[in-house]
Structure formats: structure tokens, C-alpha cells
């Protein structure tokens, strides 16, 4: 049974359809990259998977549970996943407090929070910044904190929306390493939207290509880049499409 299954999912804002009839399955423990040009609907698809927005049509099933349910149930399901947004969206508190929020909302006791925060701060090389106010960090550091906040809860599903778009190579490398480790050690299922083909190749076992709100192709990452079946995918991976 897939961890996430989108069945004929569409999302419209007014008359503008952003995601169109998407069918997507995420098997447990896999890393799927979502590629596509700007405005292709990657962010909306991530938010749909994160249950932060409801589909206009179709249904999303998480671990066998249809997510067309009340807010309380949705909240319970959201607590099994974590999201990293394109912009870090940190709270105006210290790095340490940012990282502990998800653990607090999940009702962990102080001892467990302390242990988990310590562990993730070390893994993300943030121990020196722990007391710093989050809003004073550089873009790359802030995004590392955002990833640390997401990983601290050990989610079953990790959703990343262009997590390294504002990061320098060092910060990007730390983020990528932490995602790979989480997948390998904890079995975290990962859906990552990225513009970076190298990142997709480094991280993802499979890659889906999204174009104008539709998934036009999905293959193993190597095959998608080497022998794309769809003309639009071919144009994108060869750099002929912005």
C-alpha cells in the first residue's frame, strides 16, 4: 500500500487550474523528485500532499486514510509528516525553539524534546547557532533550521519544496545529506520539488515531470534524464525549456 496516493487530483484558484487530474503514488521509503518549470504546480502539489490545502477535485489517501475528513483528523495526519517550504518560514524565536515546536505540538515530554533537538542540531551542524534568533540567520542557515525543524519529529513523510534554492553549496550539502540519512536510517518517504537536475539525480530514485499542472512523465531518475519519453520532458532536461 502506498503511503500517499493522489487520485485524479485537481486544484483550482478561481477559474485558474493549477493542478490537473494528477494521479500520484508514493511508496513507503522512496524518494521521488518533482521537476518542472516555474508555475507548473510543484508548490501546490506539495501543499496538497501536506494536507495544507484541499483538492478541488479528486482525493488524497494517506496511509490508507481518505483525507476528506474533519480538521481534527487532518491535524493528526499532518503530525505524521513534515514540510520544508521554499522560504524557511521560521518563527521569530531562537533556533532551538524553532526546532522544538513540532515536538511540542506532538505532545512529547521535555526529556524527549531535549534529546531530539540536541540530535538534530548536531546532525544539521547548528549547535553553534542554537541560541541565535532565527530571523538573524542567513538564508542558507535559516533553511537548515527549517529542515532541522522538519526532521526533529522523525516524520513518515518529508515534503520539500525547493529546499536548497537559497542555499550555498555547503548548506545545500548538509541539507541533502540529512535527507538521505533520514531516508536510509528512518525509512522516511520523501517528495522533493526541485529545479536542480543534479539534486534530483543525487537524491531521488524516481522523478516525475510536472508541466502546466499535469504529471506528463514519471520514471526512474536515471531513465528520465537519459531517455525521456515525453517531448516536453526532453525539452526541459536538455535545457530547451525554462
Amino acid at each position: 500500500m502506498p503511503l500517499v496516493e493522489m487520485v485524479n487530483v485537481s486544484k483550482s484558484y478561481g477559474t485558474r487550474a493549477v493542478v490537473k487530474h494528477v494521479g500520484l503514488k508514493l511508496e513507503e521509503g522512496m524518494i521521488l523528485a518533482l521537476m518542472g518549470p516555474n508555475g507548473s504546480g510543484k508548490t501546490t502539489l506539495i501543499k496538497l500532499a501536506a494536507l495544507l490545502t484541499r483538492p478541488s477535485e479528486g482525493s488524497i489517501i494517506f496511509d490508507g486514510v481518505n483525507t476528506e475528513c474533519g480538521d481534527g483528523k487532518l491535524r493528526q495526519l499532518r503530525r505524521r509528516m513534515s514540510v520544508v517550504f521554499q522560504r524557511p518560514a521560521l518563527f521569530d524565536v531562537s533556533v532551538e525553539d524553532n526546532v522544538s515546536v513540532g515536538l511540542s505540538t506532538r505532545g512529547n515530554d521535555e526529556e524527549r524534546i531535549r534529546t531530539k533537538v540536541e540530535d538534530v542540531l548536531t546532525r544539521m551542524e547548528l549547535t553553534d547557532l542554537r541560541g541565535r534568533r532565527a530571523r538573524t540567520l542567513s538564508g542558507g542557515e535559516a533553511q537548515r533550521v527549517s529542515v532541522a525543524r522538519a526532521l526533529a519529529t522523525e516524520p513518515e513523510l518529508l515534503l520539500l519544496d525547493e529546499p536548497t534554492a537559497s542555499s550555498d553549496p555547503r548548506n545545500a550539502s548538509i541539507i541533502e545529506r540529512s535527507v538521505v540519512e533520514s531516508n536510509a536510517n528512518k525509512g522516511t518517504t520523501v517528495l522533493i520539488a526541485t529545479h536542480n537536475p543534479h539534486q534530483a539525480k543525487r537524491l531521488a530514485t524516481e522523478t516525475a515531470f510536472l508541466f502546466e499542472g499535469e504529471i506528463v512523465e514519471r520514471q526512474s531518475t536515471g531513465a528520465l534524464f537519459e531517455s525521456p519519453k515525453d517531448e516536453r520532458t526532453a525539452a526541459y532536461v536538455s535545457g530547451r525549456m525554462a
Partner: protein
Amino acid sequence: MRGALSGWDVIISGVAKAVQLILSGDPTVLQITFLSIVVSGTATLLGALIGIPLGTVTSLKQFKGKSAVVQVVNTLTGLPPVVVGLVLYLVLSNSGPLGFLRLLYTPQAMMLAQLVMVMPITMSITISSVSAIDPDVREAAMSLGASPLDETLIMLNEARVGLLTSVVVGFGSAISEVGAIMMVGGNLLGYTRVLTGAIVLLTNQGEFAEAIALGIILLSLAFVVNILLTILRSKFAGTSSYTASILVSPAESRSA
């Protein structure tokens, strides 16, 4: 020229009188000042207790007619005090719907008048402050599985400087108000006379030196309160003050 000189004389003697009144601890001045603080402080506190939650809910919830509600609240921030005074006078007078409460010409009526003017201010600034928070921050809270209460606390923390500003502006509006409180308070010496009412009365009586003295006290009072709140505001803005129960700070836990 003589008029200008005599005007300066009045101001200078007013300042001297103010110093004298403050240093001598004049009981009447102390009582008037104390009542001003109590009336305006209570009105501001109640205005914040009502306006901040209402503003937060208005900002965070999507509902039909929301923009109309925001427009009305923003309009009410400019309520003419004499209109508030007139309406409350009619409502609280013996023949009015709330006449049985016998509140007219009491400090409670003055608090009510100031509350009516302060509440839209705190609510309006709260709406602006909470609405100005990056929507991603709210989505981040939701994505972390925050309950509605947790989410609200996170948003209030993000907007804390704006919330404190609403209190500062509300108090400034209350302490400087005169029209409404005179109409419903009656400006009775020893009972409902506050600094603004006393200044109006002394000016009408030609007692300019005393009026200026009380004006200086009023200004100093507003200044001190503003300084205190500004210090608080900068402290809030510059340090991690998030003590809401949702955020258990490991650093604090360690030191405990």
C-alpha cells in the same frame, strides 16, 4: 508684543507651578492624576482584553463580510469623542436603556466611554499586525500539527510588537481624551475629575498657570507610560520571549 510676552510669562509660571505642585505633593493634583491613570489604564486594559482577541479572530478566520467588518473597525478608530459622550449620556441617563445601572457621572461611565474609543484602536492594530505576518509562517505552524490554540499563540507571538503598539496607542488615546468623559463623568472634583477635565475647567476660569501645570503633568504621564511600553516593545522585538506553553524551550528546561 505685550500679549506675546504675557503668554510666555504664563507658560513660565505654569512650569514653575507644575514643579511646585509635583514637589509639594498637592493632594488634589495627586487624586486627579491617580484617577486619570486608573480610568485610562482600566479602559486600555479592557480594550486590549477585548480588542486583541477579536482582532486576532477577525484576522485569522475567513468569513463572509470580513472586509466590511475590517472597514467598520477602522472607521471606529476615528470616533468623535463628543459623539461617544452623547450616545453614552443618552444610554446611561435615567430615562436611557441602561439608566437603571446608575452609572452616569461615575468613574465607571468614564471608563466605558474610553473603552468604546480604545477597543477599535486595539482591534484595528491587531488586525493589521496579524494580517501582516507571512502566510508561510501560519502554514508552517499548521504543517507542524499545531492545534488551533497553538497556531493562534504562534501568530500572536509573531505579532507581539504590533500588539504592544496597539496598547500604547490605545492608552495615548484614552489619557488625552476629554469630550466624552466630561459628558458622562461630569468633571466632579474629588470624584470624576481627571487631568484633561481639570485643564479644560481651569482654562475656562482663566487659571492658565494651573492649567499648564496639569498639562505638563499629563504630558509627563503619557511620556513615562510611552517610554515604559517602548522599552517593553524593544525588549519583545529583540529577545526570544516566547513563553507560550506550546514552546518548551530546551534551554530553559536545562537550566531548570
